[in-house]
């Protein structure tokens, strides 16, 4: 069983490749839909099955310089691979109906399935080179999402996405190379691979490598200054793809930075250095900036994209604080934000699919037309703002405490204030859609109800309920996250 870790990684990839080759799948929509849901469900089962195999490892072939392609299942793998499988399933179900509107369905689902495999590969990666390999593949394989509409704008957006990602990855490769030569190991170990003497020998070099890698990898998570692609690329993709891009792919940037900061360098050696200060400062800046830009954005999907920029930096702030609570909050927010942001984008998909409206000011009365959808949207928004007893509040509480514990002079108090200002702004850019949706300004028009297809409604409902449940009973998740923080700090 241990040697079969590659199964959850390769299974969706094969599923996608088969989909691209089978003749029947091009024409027969029903067959295709059944096939896709089967693959997604099977992958979900596989991932949760393999979560029981915590600790198993697989060394494949040496890729370069005797460094092997190495996969391993540990707690972080479990958290992220589970999240990927769940969100991918929900968004896949939604996309079955949504993609009728977009066209080129088969090629969308081919890349959708292959990407799931690659992302699971990133979660399972056991050393830096494997991580880099899967990371580069992910960039190349998720580009077709952005390109999907095949308009001039999409091509430009896809180019921007690729260039920012590759620039970030190149920065990180520099760091990886330095570590490959000078660090004791580039396989991940909780708490880092360094000892005090080794770290002291080339301290500046190591810190430069750490800084490069963190900024480079966090570009995927939308950290300033490598955030510019996110508001351009996410809206161009079809809504279910935007959902997984904002919800999951940004988290891959988070995952890689966790691996770098806590499994290679170790919090003990980064705490108090300029790397930590830089990371926290950039995160705080991005939080404020993302919220502010979202507040003023008239296009719905672009607004949500800026919201992602801001919210993912909550997670990065928590990680950068390098305290137990901050880290717990960050990990919790990984899950909570993925759930909420997916809801938001799926809602935008439903709105576009049934009414074609893309700008926020056109959304008057949408609550009367699609009340269930907007209800789920409202719950997700409230969760993102951080209103108790919904999920976002729990993570925000941990984050704020963690940041205050970190004890960095100004950021100590500035960061919680920024968090709260951002929450106010979040309410400011998310709630008006609900309010105008249910209480349109031009109150006289009648709004007829639109019935939503089950395949689109069910994921939204599930996500809405999840937001509530995770907020009221987050116990097990909190314990799990605290376990991880203790392990790493």
């Amino acid at each position, binding site marked *: 069983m241990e040697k079969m870790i590659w199964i959850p990684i390769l299974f969706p990839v094969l599923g996608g490749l088969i989909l691209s080759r089978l003749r029947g799948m091009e024409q027969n929509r029903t067959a295709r839909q059944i096939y896709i849901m089967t693959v997604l469900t099977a992958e979900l089962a596989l991932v949760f099955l393999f979560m029981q195999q915590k600790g198993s490892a697989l060394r494949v*072939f*040496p*890729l*370069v*310089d*005797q460094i092997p392609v190495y996969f391993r299942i540990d707690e972080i793998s479990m958290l992220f691979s589970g999240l990927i499988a769940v969100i991918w399933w929900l968004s896949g179900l939604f996309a079955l109906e949504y993609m009728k509107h977009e*066209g080129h369905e088969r090629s969308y689902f081919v890349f959708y399935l292959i990407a799931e495999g690659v992302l699971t590969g990133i979660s399972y990666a056991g050393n830096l*080179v494997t991580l*880099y*390999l899967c990371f*580069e*593949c992910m960039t*190349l394989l998720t*580009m*077709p999402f952005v*390109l999907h509409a*095949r*308009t*001039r704008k999409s*091509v430009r957006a*896809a*180019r921007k996405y*690729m*260039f920012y990602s*590759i*620039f970030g990855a*190149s*920065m990180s*490769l*520099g760091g990886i*190379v*330095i570590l*490959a*030569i*000078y660090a004791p190991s580039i396989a991940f170990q909780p708490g880092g691979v360094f000892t005090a003497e080794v770290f002291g020998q080339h301290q500046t070099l190591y810190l430069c490598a750490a800084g490069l890698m963190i900024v480079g990898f966090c570009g995927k998570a939308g950290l300033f200054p490598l955030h510019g692609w996110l508001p351009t690329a996410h809206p161009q993709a079809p809504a279910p793809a935007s959902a997984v891009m904002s919800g999951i792919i940004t988290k891959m940037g988070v995952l890689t930075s966790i691996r770098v900061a806590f499994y290679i360098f170790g919090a003990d050696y980064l705490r108090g250095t300029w790397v930590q200060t830089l990371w926290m400062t950039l995160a705080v800046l991005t939080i404020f900036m993302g919220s502010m830009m979202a507040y003023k954005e008239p296009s719905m999907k672009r607004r949500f994209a800026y919201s992602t920029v801001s919210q993912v930096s909550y997670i990065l702030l928590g990680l950068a604080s390098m305290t137990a609570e901050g880290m717990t909050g960050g990990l919790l927010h990984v899950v909570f934000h993925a759930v909420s942001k997916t809801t938001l984008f799926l809602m935008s998909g439903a709105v576009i699919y049934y009414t074609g409206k893309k700008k926020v000011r056109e959304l008057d009365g949408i609550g009367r037309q699609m009340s269930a959808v907007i209800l789920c949207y409202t719950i997700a928004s409230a969760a993102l703002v951080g209103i108790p007893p919904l999920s976002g509040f729990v993570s925000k509480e941990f984050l704020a405490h963690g940041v205050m514990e970190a004890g960095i002079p100004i950021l100590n108090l500035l960061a919680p204030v920024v968090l709260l200002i951002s929450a106010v702004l979040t309410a400011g850019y998310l709630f008006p859609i609900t309010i105008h949706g249910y209480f349109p300004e031009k109150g006289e028009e009648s709004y007829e109800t639109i019935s939503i297809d089950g395949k689109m409604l069910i994921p939204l409902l599930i996500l809405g309920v999840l937001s509530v449940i995770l907020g009221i009973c987050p116990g097990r998740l909190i314990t799990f996250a605290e376990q991880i923080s203790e392990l790493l700090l």
Partner: protein
Amino acid sequence: MKTWMLLIPVLLPVIGGGGMYFFPIKEDRFRQCYVFGITLLNSLIVFWMLIRGVDGSFSVFHMAHGLELKFHIDGLSRVFGGILAFLWPFATLYAFEYMRHEERNNLFFCFYTMTYGICVGIAFSANLITLYMFYELMTLSTLTLVIHKLDQPSILATMKYMVYSIAGAAFAFIGFMFILHYGTTTDFVYGGVLDMSKVGGRENLLLFIFVLTVLGFGVKAAIFPFHGWLPTASVAPTPVTALLHAVAVVKAGAFAILRVTYFSFGTDFLYGTWAQQIMMGFAIVTILFASSRAVKEIHFKRRLAYSTISNLSYIIFSASLMTPFGLKGSLAHMVTHAIMKITLFFCAGAVMHQTGKEYIYELKGIGRSMPFVMGCFTIGSAAVMGVPMLCGFVSKWAIVTAAVRTQIPLAFVGMAAILFSAFLTAVYLFSIVVKAFFRTENIVEPVKKEDPNWYMKLPIAVLSGMMVLIGVWSGPLMQLLEMIAYGRL
């Protein structure tokens, strides 16, 4: 194995090709069989000799001490010879199809084959005078190939090529003179041949001469500012550009620089001196300059030409590190870049041959009509970019790790330059891929498939396969190169 057999692979193509000049073959079919037969036979002989190895060297005639034509096989000969022997048959096959509709094919293939023998002569040369002589002969024999089309741009290109090459050779000759005087021998010996007692207090002079020599040979290796001939020479027929200007001629320049650095002047003498910094500086400038020019370039083959210039300077940069790891990196990149770049040129040539399109903006949607060619182009682009699991990553890793190991500040600048150049490579190569596969208009009717026939497809397919193979299974190759780099082979 008798040492005189070293002459066979040198003379066989020369005589065989030269024979075609005096006894022209009119019939296409017969000529193809004849040329391919000679080429393949020669390759087999070369491989046999490389594997069996030849002890000692063979002098043709001995004029005076240091002035003899001498051949041997050592580690570097193996690498360069192996590249030539492996790629020449494929290139010949490709050339048959490409030149099908051209005139004066007899003359073309005559010189094409003669060049093969001369290049092997360069690979097998055991001292500087042999290298120099065959170097000049190569210039002469490739002139006819560049001027083949006999139109205004070709003539201009040939003139430029000739001027640059001869000027460069003149500078290199000066180096030869000084080695003759200050060295124990002009033979190539691992570690250098300088006689320190003769050098005395004149280190600076010798360093200066070294720089001149490198720049002299660097003309062929397209170091800035002597690179100008290469983009202009891309007007030649694609088999010429592919083989000569991506593999044989330019690699001969790099090869000569490696010989001069590691086997004549010697790294012990050069390491840590200002000459090393200058050589590194030139390489870094070329890398950045050429990659940047490639982004701007809108002509397909010229863009690839600038990419060649940039990648050659990777080899020269790695050579300038002057450690065994540096040599290993150079050799690795020589091998991988030859394969990658020849594939890219083959694909470009196939496009030009089938559709006549020369400029990038004409390539919209060509992925649909030539899926095979563009598919392999994508693999080649990803390889040049440095995506893991393809060969380019392996050699780039070797170069960058070698740079980091030296801890020279300028080497870190070089590493940053290489990573930035990788990013630029993504920009200028992947935008072609995107353009080819994702066109902006939605055309639904089936497109005529214009992929070339098997003469062209086979080389492209085999070489793409090699890229993946070396990328995934690089162990044996890298171990071999490491042994060569340490002088054990």
